[in-house]
């Protein structure tokens, strides 16, 4: 599993596209706000973005439990194919006033921690420039 993290509008998707172009990857499947349930092969690349939306779908769940649940789904997917998670960093602003937004932000943080720990590679994107936080080239 790979993680691409960065603030909004920093060029994360553009980076992933160019990265896969370089690897000459043909089979790319992009999912925004959902984790696919279909099966994929080892040659495929499954790109998942908008974890905020995924979290909001079951925001009533406990933060820790929720993050673990999403992470488990990703782990299962990762066993059959190549998974790239596009994570928007939303944890550096002012604490949101609304309870639901606070929970979203907290759950996102929990999930990202797990993803960072279990991924073989983590890359931060800063306005299009990559920084490898974990794992080699």
């Amino acid at each position, binding site marked *: 599993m790979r993680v691409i993290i960065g*603030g*909004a*509008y*920093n*060029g994360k998707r553009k980076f992933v596209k160019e990265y896969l172009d370089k690897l000459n990857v043909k089979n790319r499947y992009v999912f925004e706000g959902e984790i696919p349930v279909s099966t994929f092969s080892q040659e495929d690349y499954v790109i998942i973005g908008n974890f*905020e939306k995924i979290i909001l779908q079951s925001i009533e769940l406990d933060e820790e439990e929720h993050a673990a649940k999403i992470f488990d789904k990703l782990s299962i997917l990762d066993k059959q194919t190549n998974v790239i998670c596009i994570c928007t*960093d*939303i*944890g*550096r*602003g*002012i604490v*949101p006033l609304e309870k639901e*937004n606070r929970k*979203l*932000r907290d759950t996102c943080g929990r999930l990202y921690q797990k993803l960072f720990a279990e991924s073989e590679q983590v890359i931060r994107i*800063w*306005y*299009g*420039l990559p*920084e490898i936080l974990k794992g080699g080239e």
Partner: protein
Amino acid sequence: MGRVLFITGGVRSGKSAFAEYYAKELYTKYNSSHLIYIASGVAFDEEMKSRITRHKQDREVSEIEWITVELADEVPTKLDKFQNNSIVLWDCITTWLSNVLYKTQGLNKINRLNQIEHHLNEFKQQIISWKGQDIVVILVSNEVLDEQLSDFSEVNLYRQILGDLHQWIVAISDETYEIDYSLKRQWK
């Protein structure tokens, strides 16, 4: 050939101080003709007034003389006439962009987006033209994109334009810095 330098950071991170220090250092190093400060702040309230005064005073006590150019929104053509071998410090891009958005607020959506696009193009052309001259341009901006989507569409529009603009600036920059409370890290 000129150079473009980009410096960002959170609020009160010390980015302006670093930018001014660096501008003066380059001024001395390159034996430059002028040290130019582009100010985009508009004094719309007391706090903003004192903020501007504080920045002005900092520059006044400087041993090197700054030439201040006010640039609220429209990029004037006379900026083309900066002499080669000048150092230009623009602090900051976020303020300039706020002014552009504020100024165009009364227009209908399509006209507004066109007007914003027009300003952005003027901005980009100016930077490229300076780069073509022997001018060192230091652009200062803010880190404001590491939080959730706002409930206000205006804020999200601002963030999107700013993010895209930052990507453009970073791509053409020769050096880029992110300042974290006086600690700087060089990305490029």
